[in-house]
């Protein structure tokens, strides 16, 4: 199977962890700094605070990015072991380089953000309780066929689009971390999409693991 994505870890020097992630026309860079000192208003007594910033490829950030930040935060909040770093801050920045979809959609962007964050968190060695990965799916208008990683064109001709994120254990998709669906669809279709995405995530995880193990072996090259 040809890999449908390109990823690279540790591309930036000034932050603790970074990753670039590209799938189809969508490409972005994520950086993670943490645990670092939190500002007084961010500080939480028992766990780490999470600061998520998403910067659009063109133009200044607006409420659109705020909402995506909120979604990303809800995913990261449930996987990062925040209790390990009380009163500290974990700073996540995602820079979109190419959204790869019309501005009225955010699926590709969100999926890219989640996956880039996963890789950057690993590069930053921030404690996470489980692996996770996301995929987007669209349902075709007429045929009802499921399209994995829909392009901008696929999205405009689809009747609904979905972003699904699963946690991974032993190479298998385990529990649903996040899912959002917009458009017109039925319950059966939604459940089908979830299963379909879970399987796609398992498949792609093989490639992702390769990228990670390469990066990690590079990091520990001094040991051998």
């Amino acid at each position: 199977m040809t890999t449908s994505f390109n990823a690279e870890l540790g591309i930036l020097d000034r932050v603790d962890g970074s990753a670039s992630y590209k799938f189809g026309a969508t490409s972005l860079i994520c950086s993670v700094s943490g645990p670092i000192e939190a500002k007084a208003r961010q500080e939480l007594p028992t766990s780490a605070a999470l600061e998520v910033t998403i910067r659009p490829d063109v133009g200044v950030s607006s409420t659109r990015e705020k909402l995506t930040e909120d979604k990303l935060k809800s995913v990261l909040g449930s996987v990062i072991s925040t209790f390990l770093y009380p009163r500290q801050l974990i700073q996540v920045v995602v820079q979109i380089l190419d959204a790869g979809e019309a501005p009225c959609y955010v699926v590709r962007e969100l999926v890219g953000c989640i996956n880039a964050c996963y890789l950057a968190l690993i590069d930053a060695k921030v404690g996470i309780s489980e692996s996770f990965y996301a995929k987007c799916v669209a349902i075709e208008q007429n045929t009802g066929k499921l399209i994995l990683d829909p392009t901008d064109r696929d999205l405009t001709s689809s009747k609904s689009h979905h972003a699904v994120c699963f946690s991974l254990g032993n190479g298998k998709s385990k529990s649903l971390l996040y899912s959002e669906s917009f458009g017109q669809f039925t319950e059966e279709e939604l459940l089908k999409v979830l299963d379909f995405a879970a399987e796609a995530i398992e498949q792609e995880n093989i490639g992702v693991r390769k990228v990670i193990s390469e990066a990690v072996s590079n990091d520990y090259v001094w040991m051998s």
Partner: protein
Amino acid sequence: MFKGFEVSSNEQAFTLETLKSGIRFDGRKLEEMRDIDIRLGDEYGYVEVRLGNTKAIVRISAQLAVPFEDRPYEGIFQISTEISPMAGPMFEAGRQSIDEVLISRLVEKAVRRSGALDLESLCIIAGSRCWAVRADVHFLDYDGNFIDATCLAVMVGLSHFKKPDIAINGEEIVLFSTDQRDPVPLSVLHIPLCVTFAFYNPNDVEENIKGSSSGELILVDPTMKEEAQSLGSMTLTLNKNREICQISKAGGLPIDAPVIMDCCSIAYSIVERLTEKIKQLLKDDEAKRIDINVQRALSAANDR
């Protein structure tokens, strides 16, 4: 220079000593710029620039807009330079630091005010339609001298970018997609480039002000560490026609006027070399694209 980054006095003394003997940490000469790596994207107007470890990405975009009322014959050109914590945790998200304002002001002066982009050529129908060109600068990694890197990236971006072709049909504007008509480049009048100098004083203050010897040390293209220890900096903007577009030296160490003249000639040789490099790069890119287009045309012919 930036809050949260401090250098110990031992290191400072050491740096000064090495600089006195004409050596820099990264093995450069005092008047040498770091290697510049410019990469052009598949899309027009997408440029990645690396200046040593300083990295920035510029995206140029254009859309139709209504011109400003007081300037009906001109298009709109905006540069957005916002530094996120991605460039380094010392930058705060959503709040502009003083240095950030300084960078955006300097780039603005260097590119916009020097008239690098012909705004009148962006006018489509006076008073009602024009092109609005945007340069979004994304800073990825900070190791000193954002200004030079940004200015260079914006200028390469503008020279590389092509906007969709249009036709005016009375009052109607017809936009053509790239596969229908070749997009047209922007009219870039000249390529102003910035060169930043950092100043150090190996002697005491008295010698610097009263003394007749101008013993101040001058570095080109300081890294973050060098920036943090410098006593002042100056940014010159020149183009290859030997014109100075902008000089900015905001306070700091007093420098003799003739020394600044020397700086100008150093900057000129750097700018000349860089301009050549940019021209070559754009030419190669153009050739590559034509190659691809020819191939596509051939394969299309084969299909039939």
